[in-house]
């Protein structure tokens, strides 16, 4: 992924806006600025009317207000610059990520860009009387929009490749986990029956030994624990589409906290906004929360505060899980959601990758937040229009 990041720079260099073009764009930018909101409005109407986009959005409420705001910002910066540099590339990369998340068909990028292009060119033709200036403006506008389009396509390709690679890895791991998990159950079955029979034998022989009995009980408990670990692993590894239903956030958080076994020295704090709910797969959501809570608990190793907060955010619901442990090293941060990446000596590196998969399948996001100390994960699930029949399983 680090090698790929050069691609956006290469694409930018390929289009090479010279200083004359930049100057032309800058003055055009001043001229067209008052017109931009109207252009974006028209663009949004075009976008939200397109049946392909509506279907693809999977019933996720498109927050027009947010979309317009982002688009205004994008168009202004596209015209006024800067047209290179780390911040510029990073913002274009984020656009690619967003497009991949909503599974935007690439042909729509062209038609959508064309909508903006034709408005800008028409404006230039109508408002720049000097023919030389007009010509230069038309050429520069075309160039910058082509650059933006090329960056969108390249960043889309990058993000999609990452996503596919991770999916494939998870699928392979899933299959492997399933077959190993099943295989492990047979020997566990034998251990269970043999331990039971041993205890029975002692009983039959009239041997009453507390220590032996205790060990027999302990051994059987551990067998059951192994079985549960296998079941949980198999459950997580299965790529089941979310079976959405009404979920009360406080309730699912409580369920997740229930089996947590926090040491007494760890403070648990829960702040859930009243009547917070979402339309999601309760079992899957619970696994995500359990995973994050267990990570937090393990990171703190005995003392600290584990905080769960739930609140409405951005046309959806956000759940934050924060711990006061050592946090995640800067170098490791970009990789935390990768399958098989773990910093735990006894972890299996699957948890966060699977959390991300579950959350993505719900149309949501999960991110590691930047905090001064400890680690904080934010899960966001979009509000879903519940009366869409195609959403229920």
């Amino acid at each position, binding site marked *: 992924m680090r090698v790929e990041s050069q691609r956006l720079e290469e694409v930018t260099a390929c289009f090479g806006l010279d200083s004359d073009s930049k100057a032309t764009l800058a003055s055009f930018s001043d001229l067209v600025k008052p017109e931009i909101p109207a252009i974006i409005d028209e663009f949004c109407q075009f976008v939200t009317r397109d049946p392909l986009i509506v279907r693809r959005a999977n019933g996720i409420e498109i927050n027009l207000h947010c979309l317009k705001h982002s688009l205004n910002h994008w168009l202004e910066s596209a015209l006024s610059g800067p047209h290179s540099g780390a911040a510029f590339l990073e913002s274009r990369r984020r656009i690619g990520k967003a497009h991949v998340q909503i599974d935007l068909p690439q042909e729509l990028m062209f038609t959508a860009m064309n909508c903006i292009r034709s408005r800008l060119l028409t404006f230039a033709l109508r408002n720049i009387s000097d023919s030389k200036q007009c010509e230069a403006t038309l050429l520069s506008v075309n160039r910058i929009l082509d650059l933006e389009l090329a960056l969108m396509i390249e960043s889309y390709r990058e993000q999609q490749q990452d996503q596919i690679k991770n999916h494939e890895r998870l699928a392979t791991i899933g299959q492997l986990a399933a077959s190993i998990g*099943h*295989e*492990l*159950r*047979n020997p*566990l*079955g*034998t*251990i*269970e*029956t*043999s331990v*039971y*029979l041993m205890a*029975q034998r002692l009983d039959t022989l009239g041997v009453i030994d507390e220590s032996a009995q205790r060990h027999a009980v302990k051994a059987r408990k551990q*067998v*059951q624990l*192994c*079985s549960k670990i296998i079941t949980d692993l*198999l459950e997580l590894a299965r790529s089941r589409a979310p079976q959405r239903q009404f979920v009360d956030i406080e309730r699912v958080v409580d369920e997740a906290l229930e089996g947590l076994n926090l040491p007494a020295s760890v403070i648990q704090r829960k702040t859930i906004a009243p009547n917070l709910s979402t339309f999601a797969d309760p079992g899957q959501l619970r696994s995500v929360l359990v995973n994050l809570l267990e990570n937090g608990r393990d990171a703190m190793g005995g003392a600290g505060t584990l905080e769960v907060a739930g609140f409405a955010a951005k046309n959806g619901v956000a759940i934050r899980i924060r711990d006061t442990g050592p946090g995640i090293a800067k170098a490791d941060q970009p990789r935390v959601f990768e399958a098989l990446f773990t910093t735990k000596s006894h972890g299996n590196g699957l948890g966060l990758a699977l959390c991300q998969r579950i959350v993505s399948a719900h149309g949501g996001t999960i991110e590691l937040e930047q905090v001064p100390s400890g680690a904080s994960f934010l899960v966001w699930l979009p509000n879903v229009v519940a009366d869409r029949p195609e959403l229920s399983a």
Partner: protein
Amino acid sequence: MVESRRFLVVDDNREFAQDLCELLALQGNHATAAVDAEEALQHLEHESFHGLFTDLRLPGQSGVELMEELNRRGLDLPTVLITAYVDEDVVQRAHSAGAIEILSKPLDIERWLDLARRLTSSARSTPANDAESPAADSEPRDRS
């Protein structure tokens, strides 16, 4: 006096099957072990049983196929599937074939023994055992 129940236990791991038989014997039952469907069917031809415990994955015919064979032969034998490979697909197939319950390995032994206690069926008569009197607590059945 209640006749001790007879069970057939099928698992490709003979030792595991024998261990389950031992557990059933501790409860005063009589249990026979088999490692595949073929051996199980041989036993079924010569003996009558109150219940069948079978693994899913067996060499040759699977546990479900064994159950389907029993259905074809008209042998009404309460069957419990005990398997390491539990998933929705397995559960559905097993229920369609008439399994009373599907238990996953490792077994919850107490629960399984309790299930064995509750299984009721008249011992199905076989040609070799026509003379046998029906168990005291089972219903009289037509003999075909």
